[in-house]
C-alpha cells in the first residue's frame, strides 16, 4: 500500500507547497538495509549521577560497535542518537539534569535519530525510587511525541536483578538504535533476565534457526518470512491451503518450504511438528501471525463472525504452543511470538471479536512466559498499529487517512516494520525479553 500523501509532501514541488502551507509532513522513516550504519551520527551518552558505571558500560558497548560516542553535548552538536542512562535514579529530582541535557541537544537530533532511555523497573523499590523510575515512563512517552523527522524515542527497562551487561540490554539497545525499529516509538521494553546471547553476526543473528511462520502467504506474514530468512533463518511458511499459490511464491522466494495447513485443525501442531521433524530435526522459532477479521458491532454479532476469529487468532496459537511445549521438537532456546493488535489494547468499535482474540493473545503470552522460560525460551507479542497492508487498503479513504496520521510518526507502518520487531524478539540477543508486548505503532494515540 502506498502512502501517496507521504510521497507528495516529501518530493519536489509538492514538498515546497506543503512546507508553505504548513501541512504536517510525515518523514520518510529510516529503515534497515543490510550494510547501513547502525545510526546516522555520533551517539551522546548522558546519565544521572547514580548511573556512571552503567553509562560507562553502555558507552563501551557502543564503542565496540564502532560508533562515535560523546559523553558531553553542546547545543550546536548534531547527534544520530542520544542514550539516556537513568538506572541509578533514586528520586524524581535525579531525572532533571540528564533530561535537560538531552533537551538541550534535541533540536540537533538527526533525521531518523533515536532517543533511548535505560532505566529500571519500579517493582518493589522504595517509593521515591519507584517514583523516579515510573517517572521515566512518562518522560519517554512524552519526549517521543516531541520528536520529528522520523526520530523515535524508546526505553529499555531492566527488570529486577538484571545487570547492565545482560545480552538483551545490548541487543535491545542495538535494535532500538537501528533502522529495524523505525516504526517502534514511545515504547518501553522490559528485559526480564540475563538470558540470551549476542550473535556472532549481527546481520544474520538467526543463522541455523528453523522458523515456522503462520499466515505467511501475504502481507505481514510474508514480510516476516522474508525478514527472518534475511536474518539467516530457514523458514517454514504456513498458510491455509486456499492461499497455497501465494504461499508457494513466498516459500520459494525465501528458499524455505511451504506447509499448507489450516491452523485451526485439531492436528495442526502435529502436522507442523511432522514437517519440521523430518526436514530440519528441530523447531526454534514460532510466529503465530495467522489472523482474520470479521468486523461487526456486537449487537449484530453472530457465531459465524465470532467463532472463527477466536479460533484462528487465539485458540490456534494456544493449542499449537502447548502442543509444541509438550512435544520434543523445540530447540534449546525456543522463541514464540504472537501477533496482538492495538485493538486488543485500546479496543476498537466493531471489533469485539477481534479485540477479544488479540487481548487474549496478550494474556496468553504473559501467562506462558514462565513455561517458555522453563524451556530455555521466550514468548512475546507484537502489537501492530496501523500497518499498510492489503487488509487496511480496504478501509474507506477518509477513515484510512485519519487512522494513518493518528500517531507520532504521522504515517502508517510497513509490514516490514512489524517483521523487524519480530525478528528482533526471536533473535538470540532478545533472550532476556519474555512475556512482553512490543507495540509497533509509531506511538499510536490510543492505548499505551
Amino acid at each position, binding site marked *: 500500500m502506498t502512502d501517496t500523501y507521504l510521497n507528495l509532501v516529501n518530493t519536489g514541488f509538492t514538498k515546497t507547497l506543503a512546507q508553505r502551507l504548513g501541512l504536517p509532513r510525515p518523514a520518510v522513516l529510516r529503515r534497515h538495509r543490510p550494510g547501513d550504519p547502525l545510526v546516522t551520527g555520533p551517539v551522546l551518552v548522558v546519565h544521572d549521577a547514580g548511573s556512571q558505571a552503567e553509562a560507562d558500560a553502555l558507552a563501551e558497548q557502543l564503542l565496540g560497535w564502532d560508533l562515535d560516542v560523546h559523553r558531553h553535548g553542546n547545543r550546536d552538536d548534531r547527534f544520530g542518537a542520544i542514550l539516556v542512562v537513568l538506572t541509578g535514579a533514586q528520586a524524581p529530582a535525579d531525572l532533571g539534569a540528564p533530561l535537560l541535557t538531552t533537551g538541550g541537544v534535541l533540536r540537533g537530533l538527526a533525521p531518523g535519530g533515536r532517543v533511548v532511555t535505560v532505566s529500571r523497573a519500579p517493582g518493589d523499590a522504595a517509593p521515591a525510587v519507584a517514583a523516579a523510575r515510573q517517572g521515566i515512563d512518562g518522560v519517554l512517552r512524552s519526549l517521543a511525541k516531541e520528536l520529528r523527522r522520523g526520530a523515535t524515542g524508546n526505553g529499555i527497562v531492566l527488570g529486577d536483578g538484571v545487570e547492565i551487561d545482560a545480552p538483551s540490554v545490548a541487543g535491545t539497545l542495538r535494535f532500538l538504535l537501528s533502522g529495524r525499529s523505525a516504526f517502534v516509538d514511545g515504547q518501553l521494553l522490559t528485559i526480564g533476565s540475563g538470558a540470551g546471547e549476542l550473535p556472532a553476526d549481527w546481520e544474520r543473528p538467526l543463522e541455523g534457526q528453523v522458523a515456522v511462520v503462520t499466515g505467511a502467504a501475504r502481507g505481514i506474514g510474508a514480510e516476516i518470512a522474508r525478514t527472518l530468512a534475511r536474518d539467516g533463518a530457514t523458514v517454514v511458511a504456513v498458510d491455509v491451503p486456499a492461499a497455497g499459490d501465494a504461499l508457494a511464491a513466498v516459500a520459494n522466494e525465501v528458499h*524455505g*518450504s511451504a506447509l499448507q495447513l489450516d491452523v485451526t485443525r485439531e492436528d495442526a501442531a502435529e502436522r507442523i511438528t511432522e514437517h519440521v521433524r523430518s526436514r530440519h530435526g528441530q523447531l526454534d522459532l514460532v510466529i503465530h501471525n495467522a489472523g482474520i477479521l470479521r468486523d461487526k458491532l456486537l449487537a449484530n454479532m453472530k457465531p459465524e463472525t465470532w467463532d472463527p476469529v477466536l479460533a484462528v487468532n487465539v485458540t490456534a496459537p494456544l493449542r499449537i504452543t502447548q502442543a509444541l511445549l509438550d512435544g520434543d521438537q523445540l530447540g534449546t532456546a525456543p522463541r514464540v511470538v504472537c501477533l496482538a493488535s492495538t485493538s486488543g489494547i485500546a479496543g476498537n468499535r466493531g471489533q469485539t471479536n477481534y479485540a477479544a482474540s488479540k487481548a487474549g493473545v496478550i494474556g496468553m503470552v504473559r501467562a506462558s512466559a514462565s513455561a517458555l522460560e522453563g524451556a530455555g525460551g521466550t514468548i512475546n507479542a507484537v502489537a501492530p498499529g496501523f500497518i499498510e497492508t492489503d487488509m487496511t487498503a480496504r478501509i474507506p479513504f477518509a477513515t484510512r487517512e485519519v487512522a494513518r496520521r493518528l500517531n507520532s510518526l504521522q504515517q502508517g507502518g510497513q509490514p516490514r516494520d512489524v517483521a523487524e520487531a519480530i525478528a528482533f524478539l526471536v533473535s538470540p540477543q532478545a533472550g532476556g525479553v519474555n512475556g512482553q508486548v512490543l507495540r509497533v505503532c509509531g506511538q499510536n494515540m490510543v492505548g499505551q
Partner: protein
Amino acid sequence: MAAARTPGSQTSSGPTPGSTGAGGDGSSPRRAVVVGGNRIPFARSGGPYVRASNQDMLTAALDGLVARFGLAGERVGEVAAGAVLKHSKDFNLARESVLGSALSPETPAYDVQQACATGMETVVGLTNKIRLGQIESGIAGGVDSTSDAPIVVSDALRTILLDLSRAKTPQQKLKAVSRIRPGHLAPSAPTTGEPRTGLSMGEHQALTTAAMGITREAQDELAAASHHRLAAAYDDGFFDDLLTPYRGLTRDANLRADTSVEKLAKLKPVFGKHLETPATMTAGNSTPLSDGASTVLLASDAWAAERGLPVLATVVDVEAGAVDFAHGRDGLLMAGAHAVPRLLARNGLSLQDFDYYEIHEAFAATVLCNLAIWESEEYCRERLGLDGALGSIDRSKLNVHGSSLAAGHPFAATGGRIVATLAKQLTAKGPGSRGLISVCAAGGQAVVAILEAA
C-alpha cells in the same frame, strides 16, 4: 531388476523387484521413491485456466512442489514432463517451465508424450534413471489444456504457406498465394478422435461398454462414488499437501459433492447412440475436457534423507501395454487389463495382493470393463493367455479418494495426480502396503505400475 525373469510366469519364487535393492547392495539397482507431489486444481475446459498455457500451469505446479519440499534454487537431477495437446512452440515445454520456476536454472529437463499415460511415463523414465544411479532426484510432470489447445491451419493451406516460404521469386510467391481458397482458411482443432479409426475415445469406450454389457446404473454408481470420495478427501484435508491453488481455484472445478446416482441417471447419453444396444455413457459418467498440471518428486533414498524429506512409496515396477483396437479385437482403453497380468506375474503377485487400486476413470465404464475382463474366465484364458480369471477385487479399495470422473482429466496430468495420491495413501496405510495403478491412453495403450509403501 526383473531382467532374468521369464515373462508370463505366474508363480515367481524369486525376490520381487520392489523388495530388493533398497540399500543398493551392488547386484541390483537401488530403489526409487516417491517423495511427494503437487498439482494445481483441475479446471473444466473454458474455465478459470482459459488463458493459461501449458507452460503457465506446469510452472505453477512445479513452483508449488518446489515450495512444499524447499527446493528453491536447487538443482534437481532432471525434470521430465509432457502434454498431449501441444503447441509446436512448446517443443521444450519441460525445460522452459523449469526456467520459469524457482528451481535452479541448471536443472535439465526433457519432454515426454504417451497420450494420457504421459504422466505415468515421466515417472517411469525418471524412476529408472534414479535406480541406475544416473540421477539422485527427479520431478515427473504432466500438463494439458483443452482451453488453450493448438489450432492449426488446414493441410491445404499449410502446404501452400510452406511453398510460399520456399518461394524465391515474386512470381513464385504470387503463384503460391493465388492457390489459397476461402475454404482453406477454416482452422482445424485437435480432436479426441483416434487417427486410425476416426472414432472418439468415448465412441470407442461405448463399443467396449456395449460388448461387455456394462450397465448405466453401474457406471453412474461408480461416478457418484468418485465425486463423494474426492469431496470427502478434500474435507479431510487429504489434498492439503498434494495441491496448490491456482488462478483462484482451490478445488477441482468438476467436483460435485452433492451429486447422486439419481441425478446422474437423468443425464442423456452422449456416446454409443448409434449402436444396437442402448446408449449408457453420459457426460456424468465420462470425464470432461479439463485443464491442469501435476508433478511428482522422485528421489533416491539418500537424496531424500539428506534433505529430511519424507519417503512415501517405492515405485516397484511398471509395465506398458497396448491392444489391437483398430481391428476391433480389443477395446481401445483395455490395454491396462492386458498389461496388469504381465506385471503381476513378473512380481509374483496376485490381483488381490493390493491394498489400493487406482484405475484411471477415463470413463466409468473403462474401470468397469477392466474389472469385468479380470473376472472373466474366458477372456483371461483366450485373450490374456492365463490359466484362469484373475478374479475380482475389493471395490472398497478402488479409487478410494476419487479419480478422474470427479477430479477431471487434463490428459498428461493424470498420471502424476494418481502416483502422488496413491503414494500418500500407502504411507498412511503403513509399511508393506501396496497399490496398483492402471492408466489407459489413446492409441490402445496403458501404463500400469506397482507402488509400495516405503
